C-alpha cells in the first residue's frame, strides 16, 4: 500500500510503524550508498573508526596499502563483534570470543588450535570479512551492500555538483570525533527537514532569528563583509531562496543575501582561502557561492549537510562559516542515532578554525539553539502518533504543489530542478517520491540485487 500520495500526503505510519521500518532496511538501506566516514578520520594505515550502515555495524579502516576499506564488524566464526572501540589503529582484528584473527585487508589469518580443531582443513580463504563496495567522493567515504548498485557518482546525480561546491572547494578535515546523540524520532523527520524545510525557521527558531544570529544587518555592518558589498536593499526579503531537487531523492536549498558582489566572495571564510576555492570550483559554483550564507542538503536516504554563516557572535568575531555533516542513523521506527561531524578547511588558520567550531557549537551542535529547538518538535511527532488515532492521519506536504506550483528559477544555471521561492514543500515531495519508489520495489532478496561478498570470494 502506498504511504505517499501524489498530492503530497504521507501516512503517519511511515514514521511510527515498525513493519514499515523493517521494510526500509531491506528496500532502501540494503540497496543504496551510505556515508560511513570522512577520509581525514582515518589518515594513516591501520587507522579505523567503527560506524553503522543502518543496523549493520562496520569497521572503516585504512589498510596497510593505504586504501580505505569497510568490513562488517562481525567475526566469521560465531559472529561476535571484532572491534569494540570507537576508533583506534590496528593491522589485524583478533576476535575476543575464540581468537580468530583477520588482517586489516579482511583476510582470515589466524585460528587458534587450527591443527586440533580442523587438522588444517579449514578453508580460511573462504572466511574473509564481509566487505561492501566502497567509493570516496570529495573526502566522503560511502559504502553499499548492493553489488548491483550504480556507481556512487551516478547514484548522486546532480547532487554531486552541490557536494563539490561544499566539500570539493578545498581539502577538509574533521574536528575531533563525531558527536553522537540517541534520539526519539524517526530518521526521515530530520532528513526531510535538512532537505529543505526553510518554512519551519521563523516559527521553530524564532528566538535565534530574533537574536540576529543570521540577520543580514549584522553581516552588512561587519567590515569584513561590507567592503565586498555593492548594494543592499532592506525592503526585499533578507534572503534569496533556491530550493533544488533531483530524481534520486536528494534535495537541498541555497540561500543568498540580496546584495551585489563585485567579485567572487566566499562569506564566512578567511580571504586567504578564497583563491584555493576558486581554483577547485567551476564558474557556476563560484557564482553560487558568492554572497551565499547557507547551503544545505539531504543526500537520500540519511546523510545531511549544511554550510551556514553565523553572522553575529555577540562579540567582534567576524562572520564565520560552519560546515557540518550529519547522519540520521536508523535504529527503530521511533529511534535514531544522530552523528554529527564538523569540518574545516585544512589550511585555515587555527584562529578561524576556532571561530568556525564555536559557530557550529552554538547553533547546530547538540547544545546549540537550533538543535534544541528542533528536537522539541521532532520527539513530539514520534510521541503523539503511536496510537490508532494518530496513525489514521497523514503529514501534509502540499505546499507549492500542483494547486499553487513552485516557480522554477530563471536566474541560475545549476543542475537538477531549481526553484526560486522561500517556502515550498517541493523538496520533501521529491524525497518521498523516491522513498515510495524504493519501497514499492521487490524485496532485495528477489530483485536481483547481489549482496556484497566476503573478502576473497565472488
Amino acid at each position, binding site marked *: 500500500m502506498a504511504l505517499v500520495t501524489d498530492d503530497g500526503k504521507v501516512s503517519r505510519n511511515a514514521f511510527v510503524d515498525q513493519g514499515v521500518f523493517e521494510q526500509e532496511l531491506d528496500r532502501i538501506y540494503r540497496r543504496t550508498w551510505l556515508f560511513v566516514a570522512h577520509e581525514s578520520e582515518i589518515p594513516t594505515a591501520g587507522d579505523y573508526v567503527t560506524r553503522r550502515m543502518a543496523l549493520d555495524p562496520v569497521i572503516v579502516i585504512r589498510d596497510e596499502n593505504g586504501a580505505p576499506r569497510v568490513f562488517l564488524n562481525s567475526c566469521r566464526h560465531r559472529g561476535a563483534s571484532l572491534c569494540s572501540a570507537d576508533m*583506534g589503529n590496528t593491522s589485524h582484528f583478533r576476535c575476543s570470543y575464540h581468537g580468530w584473527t583477520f588482517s586489516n585487508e579482511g583476510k582470515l*589469518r589466524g585460528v587458534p588450535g*587450527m591443527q586440533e580443531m580442523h587438522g588444517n582443513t579449514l578453508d580460511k580463504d573462504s572466511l574473509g570479512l564481509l566487505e561492501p563496495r566502497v567509493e570516496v567522493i570529495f573526502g566522503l567515504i560511502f559504502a553499499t551492500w548492493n553489488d548491483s548498485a550504480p556507481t556512487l557518482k551516478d547514484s548522486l546525480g546532480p547532487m554531486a555538483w552541490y557536494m563539490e561546491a561544499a566539500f570539493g572547494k578545498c581539502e577538509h578535515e574533521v574536528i575531533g570525533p563525531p558527536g553522537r546523540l540517541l534520539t526519539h524520532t524517526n530518521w526521515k523527520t530530520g532528513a526531510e527537514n535538512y532537505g529543505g524545510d526553510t518554512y519551519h525557521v521563523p516559527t521553530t527558531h524564532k528566538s535565534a532569528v530574533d537574536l540576529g544570529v543570521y540577520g543580514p544587518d549584522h553581516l552588512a555592518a561587519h567590515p569584513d563583509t561590507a567592503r565586498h558589498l555593492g548594494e543592499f536593499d532592506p525592503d526585499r526579503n533578507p534572503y534569496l531562496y533556491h530550493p533544488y531537487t533531483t530524481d534520486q531523492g536528494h534535495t537541498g536549498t541555497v540561500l543568498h543575501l540580496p546584495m551585489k558582489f563585485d567579485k567572487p566572495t566566499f562569506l564566512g571564510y578567511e580571504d586567504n582561502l578564497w583563491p584555493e576555492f576558486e581554483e577547485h570550483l567551476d564558474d557556476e559554483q563560484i557564482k553560487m557561492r558568492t554572497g551565499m550564507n547557507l547551503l544545505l542538503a539531504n543526500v537520500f536516504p540519511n546523510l545531511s549537510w549544511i554550510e551556514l554563516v553565523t553572522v553575529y557572535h555577540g562579540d567582534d568575531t567576524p562572520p564565520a562559516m560552519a560546515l557540518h555533516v550529519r547522519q540520521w542513523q536508523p535504529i527503530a521506527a521511533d529511534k535514531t542515532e544522530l552523528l554529527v561531524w564538523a569540518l574545516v578547511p585544512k589550511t585555515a588558520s587555527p584562529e578561524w578554525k576556532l571561530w568556525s567550531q564555536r559557530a557550529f557549537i552554538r547553533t547546530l551542535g547538540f547544545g546549540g539553539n537550533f538543535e534544541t529547538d528542533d528536537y522539541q518538535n521532532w520527539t513530539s511527532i514520534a510521541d503523539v502518533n503511536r496510537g490508532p488515532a494518530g496513525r489514521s492521519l497523514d503529514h501534509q506536504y502540499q505546499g507549492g504543489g500542483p494547486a499553487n506550483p513552485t516557480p522554477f528559477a530563471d536566474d541560475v544555471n545549476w543542475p537538477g530542478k531549481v526553484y526560486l521561492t522561500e517556502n515550498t514543500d517541493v523538496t520533501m515531495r521529491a524525497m518521498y517520491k523516491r522513498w515510495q519508489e524504493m519501497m514499492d520495489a521487490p524485496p532485495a532478496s528477489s530483485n536481483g540485487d547481489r549482496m556484497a561478498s566476503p573478502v576473497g570470494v565472488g
Partner: protein
Amino acid sequence: MAELPDDDTVDPDVEVELEFSIINEFASVKVRKLRTRNGERLEIDAPRVGHSIRFDALGLEGLSWQSEETVSGWLETPFGPEG
C-alpha cells in the same frame, strides 16, 4: 635519564634507557631500550601472552625489510606458538 621504576624482569647487568607501550583494543606490549655493558638492544615484551624478544641493530634491520604479509603470517597462531 628519567628515573624508572624497579623492575625485576630486567637483568641486573642491563639498564633501561627508555620505556613505552604500544596498545590497541586487541593487544598491549611494553617496549624498552636496554643498555647492556657494551651495547644496546630493543626489547618487546608481551606480558599477556607471555612472550618477549630482544633485538639488536642488525636484527632490527632485518625486521625493517619484512613484508606485511610476513607479519600477518606470524598471527596465524594469534596467541603465540602452539603445541
